């Protein structure tokens, strides 16, 4: 039918009755039964996501850390082994090529997970495959085709992973694992990488395994999760969950034309470190550029990506990047870029919902924050 790629779990999704969507060049499950039910399950119990479309890069060698310091906006070389860090890959004009998570697996060993749709862009910036890169001891490998990534997200996530048959030798134990850190383990004897990271606003884990082990791990997690209320969840729920949690999605809140500070990610950029791609542009950027805000409204009609944001006079002052009727909160929420003068929480604005003007209030992100 098309050139869409499928993950090692595609047959599992089809057997579960999933609807599929094209996402970043992949045919991915958008929902299994009801995206609202899947969303609520993650907030109250747990959801199981196939996120094998994500891209993975390995950087190894004595100069791996300094190479990442030069490539990414954050300070990677000071990360402790065992930790994870959210970072950004910028272009020369300071725009966001992609947002990534870096995991330090050893003094000279890093894993970088990037978005599926930006894999070739990230690979180009990383110079992959490049062995070794010019002037340093670092080997950069794009291992995306070798691994599957499965996320277990929700308040029951830890109990589920801990009770999954076949998962063993987990160190540190998950009870001792902090957020944005990872454990090593095995699944049925195969190396398993367990990161306490996610994209839902809940506690949870992302499990990286070789492709061949993915279907058995998926099945084992579903069986272990059944008494906890675990359900398979698709990209529709993943999107509404991350939006409630105020997390940016590249292509919406982040893009090659948006500076980190505009998206509220100024803290991610280590301007005090040595030169890195995009540093000069970020350092000299105007403070008058539009900034990302949260908008909340009443009723049930959500502003959607691309809808105009209006001021009291009806003048278009900004644009929505993502919006939905929040399943958890019960009212419309949206993220939008507006001028700094209109970005203070409490500012009254309007959304043009297909010709109908809906009042909306600027609010601090995130919209939803878990309590435990």
């Amino acid at each position, binding site marked *: 039918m098309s050139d869409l790629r499928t993950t090692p779990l595609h047959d599992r999704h089809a057997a579960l009755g999933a609807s599929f969507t094209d996402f970043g060049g992949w045919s991915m499950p958008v929902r299994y039964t009801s995206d609202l039910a899947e969303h609520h399950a993650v907030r109250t119990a747990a959801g199981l996501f196939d996120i094998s479309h994500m891209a993975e890069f390995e950087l190894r060698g004595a100069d791996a850390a300094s190479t990442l310091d030069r490539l990414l906006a954050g300070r990677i070389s000071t990360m402790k082994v065992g930790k994870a860090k959210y970072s950004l890959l910028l272009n020369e004009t300071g725009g966001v090529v992609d947002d990534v998570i870096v995991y330090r697996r050893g003094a000279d060993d890093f894993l970088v997970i990037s978005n599926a749709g930006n894999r070739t862009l990230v690979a180009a910036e990383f110079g992959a495959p490049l062995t070794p890169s010019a002037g340093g001891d670092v080997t950069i490998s794009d291992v995306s085709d070798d691994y599957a990534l499965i996320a277990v997200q929700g308040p029951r996530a830890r109990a589920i992973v801990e009770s999954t048959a076949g998962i063993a030798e987990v160190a540190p134990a998950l009870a001792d694992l902090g957020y944005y850190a990872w454990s090593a383990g095995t699944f049925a004897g195969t190396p398993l990488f367990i990161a306490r990271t996610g994209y839902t606003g809940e506690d949870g884990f992302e499990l990286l395994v070789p492709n061949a082990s993915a279907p058995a791990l998926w099945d084992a997690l579903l069986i272990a999760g059944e008494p906890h209320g675990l359900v398979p969840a698709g990209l529709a729920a993943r999107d509404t969950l991350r939006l409630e949690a105020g997390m940016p999605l590249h292509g919406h809140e982040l893009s090659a034309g948006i500076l980190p500070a505009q998206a509220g990610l100024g803290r991610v950029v280590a301007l005090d470190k040595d030169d890195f791609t995009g540093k000069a542009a970020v350092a000299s950027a105007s403070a008058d550029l539009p900034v990302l805000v949260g908008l909340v409204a009443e009723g*049930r009609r959500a502003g959607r990506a691309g809808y105009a944001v209006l001021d009291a006079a009806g003048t278009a002052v900004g644009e929505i990047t993502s919006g939905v009727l929040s399943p958890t909160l019960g009212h419309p929420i949206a993220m939008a870029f507006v001028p700094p003068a209109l970005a203070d929480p409490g500012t009254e604005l309007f959304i043009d919902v297909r010709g109908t003007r809906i009042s909306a209030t600027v609010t601090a992100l995130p919209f939803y924050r878990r309590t435990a």
Partner: protein
Amino acid sequence: MTDQNTLKYTAEHEWVALAGDVATVGITDYAADKLGDVVYVDLPAVGTTVTAGEVCGEIESTKSVGELYAPLTGEVVAVNDAVVDDPASVNGDAFGAWLVKIQVDPADVEALMDHAAYVALTGGEE
């Protein structure tokens, strides 16, 4: 339970049930599945005249906005407020959750697709 074989259908994935000169209109299971969870339904007011093929309302899901096309020309004689209050009922029973009733020329209904033609259109789903 509505007998889907006796209904008429449109290419915009609506079903039509005719009783006398009043056509009851809803969207099909196929359309409800494609939309995902319906969270908002906007219907025309009773007494307004709708025109076949023109947009007369909206059906919004978590993920997308769908337009409701009038399948026939005529005056709206009733709307289903229960669906407006509980949009999820469209997903629960698309063939039970009627949206509008329109007073029509029954001859116009005959021109719509029958069940076999609609199933052919959707590749076997209904």
